[in-house]
Each structure stands twice: as structure tokens, then as C-alpha cells.
């Protein structure tokens, strides 16, 4: 192990491995990373286990993906935090709870989702890690330094974050690439060779609408349409056509990936900087543009919206819904 290189750990708790695949998907860059970093702990790719983690005195940067669902994952998050100089929540599950946290909408706690161990068990069968009562994002378990949002994070943001945090000032060209893709505050820090401000999010500051290429004409909500119903295949704003699109409340950085292929945004980058609660923002944005003053018409239109909590907080229920107790 080269002492000059930064030591990197990558771990996924409960998730789909999409974030780890996203790291592998930065193509040849994964290999060139080895010029600047040593990947010292990566259970999925390298099979690293507790022994390898015990042997490490410290980790420079830990990329933690996935939501925390079991007690073992909580312990692992705590151990990795205690050894890591910088802890990065990588992907929507780690950053905001992601889709796994939708189970928190279910009545009762998550422990009821799996049969409880037989109390008469004599220890013949091995134990499983216990389910937590609620699915949590990483920041609800340990202190998180940076967020890389997205389900999965886009390659350019992920690569920019890796270079900014892991490569350091040893590669000016890489830092210049990174800073061109990062929000101003992060980019300035990276270019100056210092760590970005704690809590920084490796994505844009504005809403997805700012980078969405669809044409916005007039915000008048005339009807609520669901994606299986007929809507224009033109480049017109999906929200204006009546589809529930979360672009207006969601942090930019993806470049309008979903809206670009005719699908409404579902908010995997979390809320935009200026938004307090993405669900409240959506309710406000839609209801204030209803194209009617008639109470009955408005009620009929409002009745067409379904599953507001599952839609407005698709990826962020654990951390960004102001109405829920986040503890």
C-alpha cells in the first residue's frame, strides 16, 4: 500500500448495487483511480470483510451507499464513520432513504415484514441481523460530510466527486474537470485545493426545471394526467400538460434525464436548495396554478391525484418529509 495514496472504502447497505455499479461504470477511470487512491475496503467487488476493516487504522474517504435497514448495517455505518476522515452518502438511498424508505409508510414497524425468530429455538439455526423499526438514511445514523444524490448517481457527478475528494491536488486536469461539473461553492473549494464545505451536495443548487430542455409556456394546471393516459409527445413541459413532475422541487444535476425521455421527474436528487419540503412545494406549485376558480372543479381535479406521499417523497421520505418524525 502506497502511504501517499488516499485510502478509499466503498460499502452498500440495503440497496440495489446500482451505486456500486455506477462507480464501476466510470469505465477506464476506475483503473486510473489507482494512481491516486488505494481501494482498501469494498465487500461487493473485493470481498473485504470485518478482518480487513479491523486491520485499517483509518480510511480517508468512505462512499456509503444504500439505506440502513438492519442493525448490522447501522453498526457498519458507525464503524466506517469512526474510521473515516470523510463520509460520503452515495446515491439516493444513503442520502435520503431512497425507495427502500417507502416501507416507512406502512402501518407498524419494519420488523413485522419478516417472521420473528422462533422463541423456542435452541440456537440450531444461525441468527439474522435484526430489522430496524424504520428504514433510515445514512445521515440519520451517523454524521455525513457530503452527499452524492441520484438513483443511481450520474457518472459525471460521481467521477467529479471522486476526483475532488480522492485525487486531491495531485492532478490539476482532473480537478479542472471536476470543478466544471460541480456547484460553484464546491468547485471553488476543489480548485483552491481545499475540502468542499461540509454538508455540500455534489449536484446543482437550482431545480431540475432549470436544466430541463422541455418548453415551458404557461403554468396552468387544467387537469391531472397519469403516465398511462394520453399526453403530448412533443417537447412541452410535462407538468404543464398535467403530469405530476417533481422537477420544480428537485435538485438539478442530472440534466433532466427522465424528462428528456418523456418521463416525469421523481425526485431522486432530493429537494432543491431553496425548497424546505418537496411535497409541500409540489402541493403549493400545483394548487396555485389550478386553472379554475370553481370549488367543485378544483375538488374534482384534486381528487385525481393519487398516492401523494409515495410520489412526492419517492426517494426522500426518510429525511425530507417535514410532517414525519425523522428520529
Amino acid at each position, binding site marked *: 500500500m502506497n502511504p501517499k495514496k488516499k485510502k478509499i472504502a466503498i460499502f452498500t447497505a440495503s440497496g440495489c448495487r446500482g451505486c456500486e455499479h455506477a462507480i464501476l461504470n466510470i469505465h477506464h477511470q476506475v483503473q486510473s483511480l489507482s494512481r491516486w487512491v488505494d481501494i482498501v475496503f469494498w465487500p461487493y*467487488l473485493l470481498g473485504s470483510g470485518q478482518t480487513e476493516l479491523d486491520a485499517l487504522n483509518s480510511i480517508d474517504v468512505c462512499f456509503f451507499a444504500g439505506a440502513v435497514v438492519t442493525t448490522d448495517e447501522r453498526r457498519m455505518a458507525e464503524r466506517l464513520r469512526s474510521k473515516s476522515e470523510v463520509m460520503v452518502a452515495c446515491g439516493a438511498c444513503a442520502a435520503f432513504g431512497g425507495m427502500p424508505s417507502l416501507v416507512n409508510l406502512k402501518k407498524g414497524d419494519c420488523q413485522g415484514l419478516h417472521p420473528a425468530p422462533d422463541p423456542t429455538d435452541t440456537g440450531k439455526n444461525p441468527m439474522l441481523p435484526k430489522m430496524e423499526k424504520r428504514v433510515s438514511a445514512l445521515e440519520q445514523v451517523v454524521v455525513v460530510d457530503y452527499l452524492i444524490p441520484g438513483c443511481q448517481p450520474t457518472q459525471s457527478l460521481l467521477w467529479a466527486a471522486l476526483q475532488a475528494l480522492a485525487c486531491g491536488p495531485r492532478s490539476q486536469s482532473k480537478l479542472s474537470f471536476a470543478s466544471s461539473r460541480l456547484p460553484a461553492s464546491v468547485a471553488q473549494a476543489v480548485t483552491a485545493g481545499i475540502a468542499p464545505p461540509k454538508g455540500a451536495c455534489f449536484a446543482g443548487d437550482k431545480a431540475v426545471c432549470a436544466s430541463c430542455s422541455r418548453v415551458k409556456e404557461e403554468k396552468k394546471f387544467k387537469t391531472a394526467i*397519469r403516465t398511462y393516459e394520453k399526453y403530448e*409527445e412533443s417537447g412541452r413541459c410535462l407538468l404543464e400538460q398535467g403530469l405530476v413532475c417533481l422537477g420544480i422541487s428537485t435538485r438539478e444535476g442530472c440534466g433532466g434525464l427522465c424528462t428528456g425521455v418523456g418521463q416525469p421527474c421523481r425526485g431522486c436528487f432530493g429537494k432543491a436548495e431553496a425548497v424546505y419540503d418537496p411535497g409541500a412545494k409540489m402541493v403549493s406549485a400545483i394548487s396555485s396554478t389550478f386553472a379554475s376558480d370553481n370549488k367543485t372543479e378544483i375538488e374534482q381535479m384534486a381528487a385525481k391525484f393519487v398516492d401523494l406521499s409515495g410520489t412526492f417523497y419517492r426517494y426522500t421520505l426518510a429525511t425530507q418529509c417535514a410532517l414525519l418524525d425523522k428520529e
Partner: protein
Amino acid sequence: MQTITLEPLRWQEDPSRITVHANDSHLAVYYQVTSLKSVEAICCGRPVEELPRILPILAPAHHLTAAIALDRLFQADPPDLARNMRTALLQAQYFSAHLRKFFFLMTSIQDPFVDFRVSGRNIHQPKTAIRLVEKIMHHAALSQEAEDILGGRHDHPLTAVAGGVSRYLKEGHYQRLADICYALLPFACELAALTRTEFLAEGGILSQWTDLEIPALSGLHIDAGDKVTLTHPDGSGTQQFNADQLGDIIAFQQEEWTYQPFAYLKDKGWQGLEKSDGLFFVGPLARFNAGQAAATALAEEERQRMMEIVGTPPVNKITAAFGALAVELIQAAETLQSLSSPEKLSGPALRTIPKTKAGSTWAALETPQGLTWHQYHVTDDGIVQATTIIDAHAANNALKCLLAKQLVSAALERKENPGAIKDEVAVAMLPF
């Protein structure tokens, strides 16, 4: 009693470990999935049209299975353009998923982070292996780009919607897809040849597995026309069902020591893992063992060559499973190439607009990981009330448990250390 824990297992989509309880007279081996995805709890209460965007958390191809279920729910037949785009996306997913397994296989002998461009200076690095890892990563990137073009994103695609797809391809996409296919097909053939001549040859990565028989289970796969075929492990015949009956044919057993349920054949009943009557597996080897010709010419030629090395189906061997991956890699590249033309991927309509809606729906699709089957029950306003999902994780859970038991028992007899056992099990489970 001595307890050995082998954790984590490399390359497994689900976090998993093997726990071994051993004493003088008894050995118990458990393959444990240590976290729960709770997909049913995530899906219930959601609008049904959102499921193609939610279910890829299981694997990317569930996006397409869910879209087919929506077609059936809304009785909306996709136009040719949409069918072709979906098929092309599925083939790109096959290519990416299978190639990733070869990448993982290479990482069992080669540090994946060796920089090709500077490693020439390091005489200790095996250059052939490094170059192959480099080539695999390059072509993985290309197949991901094809997935991005066809599906919007690769790991969580989003273009398949009820009755079709959500967008037309752009002018530049056709040429790019053609360029990608031009690169993927020769590489698939090269990798398949390497699998035969290098990996499976004496001294190759897979040579130690040549004689290893895996647990003999029936293989389940979907034929064309929504027929499901169960191939008996000894070659004694097959059984066919209509895919809509799968929910009545397959049941799940939940054991308290693993979060992953076991799928089994309902008519045989759950007899535990000791009796394999009701157990089955899915995926590339199950398809290979059906003994059917490959869908494309070069893939069929490769299948014939592979059979000369690994044996005639049904073959219950890990080597055959890797051989099947190589054959399917070629098939995917050929099919993708045949579909990647403006004629196939353009048309007057993207989708059929649904006019009606049923109360429940199902869909079956053969995906890179194996058979997938979805069933949804929905309310009048299209909210999901209940789901049943059969995927490769549950379908192959029994095979993985039995494989783990077989390998660990043999390795302990040879007095191998836990680290070596863990590595062996990981490679053996990789193609399933």
C-alpha cells in the same frame, strides 16, 4: 460446536454470508441473505403505472417485465417500434449483465484497479489478464451506452410505459447503436473463444471446476409464446405450463434464518433443502440445459462448440454455466445488431393509449438473471393492492444454499482455510 462465518460473499447482489455449524458428527451450512428489500411493501399503495420505475431495484430487466404487465392490464398492444425498442433494451441488458460476470471472474485472479496505461512498466503484472480486464470494461461501457439510448438510464431504465415506450430515438442514436453493435459482436465472439480455449483449458481460471457437479435441480425458463418449460435435471423430459399459471405452480417458503424466501414447485410441496424434488433454478444454465438451439447463427455455432467442451445438455456443472453466459453474450450482441436500424426502431406511434383497465395483471419475461414473473392486483383507480414477484434471487436461493453446502463440506474435508473456501464459493455462485 464450531461456527464459521464466511462474510461477505463477493459479487452477490444481495448482501449475504455463509454460516457453518460443525461438530464431530454433523455439519450444517447456511447461505444467508442478510437484508430484506421488502418490495411488496414498497409497491403496495403506489399507482400501478409507477411499477416499471420502482421494480428495477430488483434488477434492470424488471422494468420490462413490469411494462408488459401494464400492457396486459390496460389491454394496450405496443406498436412494432416499441416492441423492438424493448427487445433491443433487453438484449443490451443481457450483454451488460453477462459481461459484468466475466469482469468479476477476472477480478478473482487480477487486481481490477491496475492501471493498464502504466502497468506496462510493472513486470509483475500478467499483461494478458490486464488487457482483458481493460477490454471488458471498454465493452461494458459500450453496452451501457446502448442501454442509456434505449432505456434512458442503464441500471434503472425508464422508457417502457403502458402500451409502448415514452420517446422516439434521435437521428444520431441509430448510427451510435450501429457503431456499438459493430464493436460488441466481435468482442463477444472473442470472449467466448477465450472462455473455451483459455478459461476452461488446463491451468485456466475455470479449470479447477471441470469435474465439479452442481446440485441436480430442474431448470425453469420461458419459451416463446408465454410457455414455461421445466427441464428435468437428468434429461428425462420436460413439462410445460402456461406462464399465467406460474402463480399457482410456484410457492415460496420463508425460513427464519435468511431474508430471501425459497421458491419451489407447489405440487411437490416444501420438503426442505434435503429433498430436491420441488426445487428448481433459473438463468443462463437453465436455458442452456433446455437443449434448444440459440436464436441467432453465431450464437448457435458457439453453443455447438461449447457443448463439445462442457457436454451435452442437461449439464449440471459450473463450467457449463459460464459457457452458457458466453453463448448468450453472442446471442445478445447479434440480436441487438439485427434490431439497431432506423427501420426497426422508428414508426408512426410510440405507444397505444389505453382505453380500459382490468383489475389484475401478470407478465413473464426471460431476463439475463433468469425467469421473472410479476402479478399485480389493483384498485379501480389503479393503485396497487398486492403483488407477487418471482425473480432469480428467490428462484436460485435453493441452488445457492445447496451449492454452498456441497462446496464447504468438500473444502473442510480438504482442510482448506476459510478465506480460500469463501473465494471458491463466490466463483461457483457467480454465474447463477
